[in-house]
């Protein structure tokens, strides 16, 4: 359908239905669902139904009362979606808030995103702030800012530099964490687990020099096969090959093959497990 719907200025409600292109320039409201090839909001837009389109671009303020299903969503402005978000590629440089469970193939987040329920993202690249009120599931997660998950976080590859708060279980094949400030995870489980002091350039030159401050990661239980820890406070660490490095405070370590305790590490109890 080669229909074009342009909505300028203070237009009132419009039922668009199937249009191939919908643009809101200025401010406008669409009552009902919108289906189309490309939907663009420059300015302020409100859609009272759901959105289904190949591309959905927001560079102002937008509010969708239904759900959004799209191949590509780009949000430069401020956007609220009351329903769920299903998308192949989602890029956020502004602020986005999503109300229901969402599934995204590739999420890149340079801004701020808040998901009120579960989020499934195959790959997440986030030099921004992400907060998930439910569970997070995915394949590859890279966070360089702040990550907060209210329930469990399950991925294959987990990498974080920044601030972390996971109130459930962090379960991944490989886990690499560099806490910039105090972080908290209830439980960690996986194959290779590495928690260490930030060693990257920015941290060394800027933050450490001027603030002389780095974070501690607090965990109740850490269980894995290969475990290397620095700047970690934990009640129990269980694994096959364990190294406890500087500034660790561990109440109890249970190991199978080997345990190495480096300088400036504190371990209250250690026990070798036999088969």
């Amino acid at each position: 359908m080669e229909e074009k719907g342009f909505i300028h200025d203070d237009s009132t409600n419009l039922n668009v239905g199937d249009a191939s292109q919908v643009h809101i320039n200025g401010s406008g409201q669409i009552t009902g669902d919108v289906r189309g090839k490309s939907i663009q909001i420059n300015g302020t837009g409100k859609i009272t139904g759901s959105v289904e389109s190949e591309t959905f671009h927001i560079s102002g303020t937008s509010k969708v009362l239904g759900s959004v299903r799209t191949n590509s969503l780009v949000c430069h402005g401020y956007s609220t979606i009351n329903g769920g978000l299903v998308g192949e590629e989602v890029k956020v440089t502004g602020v986005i808030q999503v109300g229901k469970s969402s599934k995204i193939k590739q999420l890149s987040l340079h801004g701020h995103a808040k998901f009120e329920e579960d989020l499934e993202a195959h790959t997440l690249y986030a030099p921004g702030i992400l907060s998930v009120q439910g569970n997070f599931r995915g394949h590859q997660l890279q966070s360089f800012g702040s990550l907060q998950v209210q329930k469990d976080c399950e991925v294959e590859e987990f990498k974080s530099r920044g601030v972390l708060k996971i109130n459930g279980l962090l379960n991944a094949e490989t886990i690499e964490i560099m806490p910039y400030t105090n972080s908290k995870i209830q439980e960690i489980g996986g194959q290779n687990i590495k928690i260490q002091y930030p060693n990257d350039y920015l941290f060394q030159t800027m933050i450490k020099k001027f603030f002389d401050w780095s974070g501690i990661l607090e965990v109740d239980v850490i269980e894995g096969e290969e475990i290397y820890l620095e700047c970690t406070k934990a009640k129990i660490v269980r694994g096959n090959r364990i190294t406890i490095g500087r500034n660790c405070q561990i109440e109890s370590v249970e190991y199978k093959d080997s345990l190495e305790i480096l300088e400036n590490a504190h371990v209250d109890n250690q026990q070798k497990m036999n088969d």
Partner: protein
Amino acid sequence: MVSRLISKKELLKLTGISYGQLYRWKRKKMIPEEWFIKKSSYTGQETYFPEDKVLLRIQKIKELKDQLSLDDIAKMFTKRNDVILKITEIEEQELLRRESIELYHSLYPNEETLTIPALLSLRIFEDLMQSGQVTWDEGKQMVALVKESVTVGDHQYLILLRKFGVGIWFITSAEEKILIDPEARKIVEIDLQEMVDKIRAE
């Protein structure tokens, strides 16, 4: 029947698997979330498992893991109760006879969708009615039982016992052995897993 609980530490010791494997299998949903039972302890929380189920599952995974990829094994165990079919879709694809759909309507007048166990129950109903082994009332009881109690992904059997003309339906896991009153007769025994696989193939 409450199954005994086993702690995570005991489980690893008994089965010889590692933390890495356990967490990997959990991620792949090869060991269901509900089997991880949290109980508070001095570390905050400890995890326990229903002993019989988890030991059996791990033994199965160990047997299969040399022949199949983890994803393939995961598919075998994944629960599919959540798959929901619209009754209109079922009519279109002729997955069920009209009489069965009418029966379902009369039993659950407010439902417009079917779960996999519900579809399974109606399919069994059709087979049984055709063979004439069970009465209409027994069939209806069976539909209610299978719809509510079957978990797709668990290997289960459906059994009908009859004694002095009174029939009772059972669902039992494949591993369980049941001993039957010699005066009772086993009228029906159906491998539910097999039926589900058949339906899925369609």
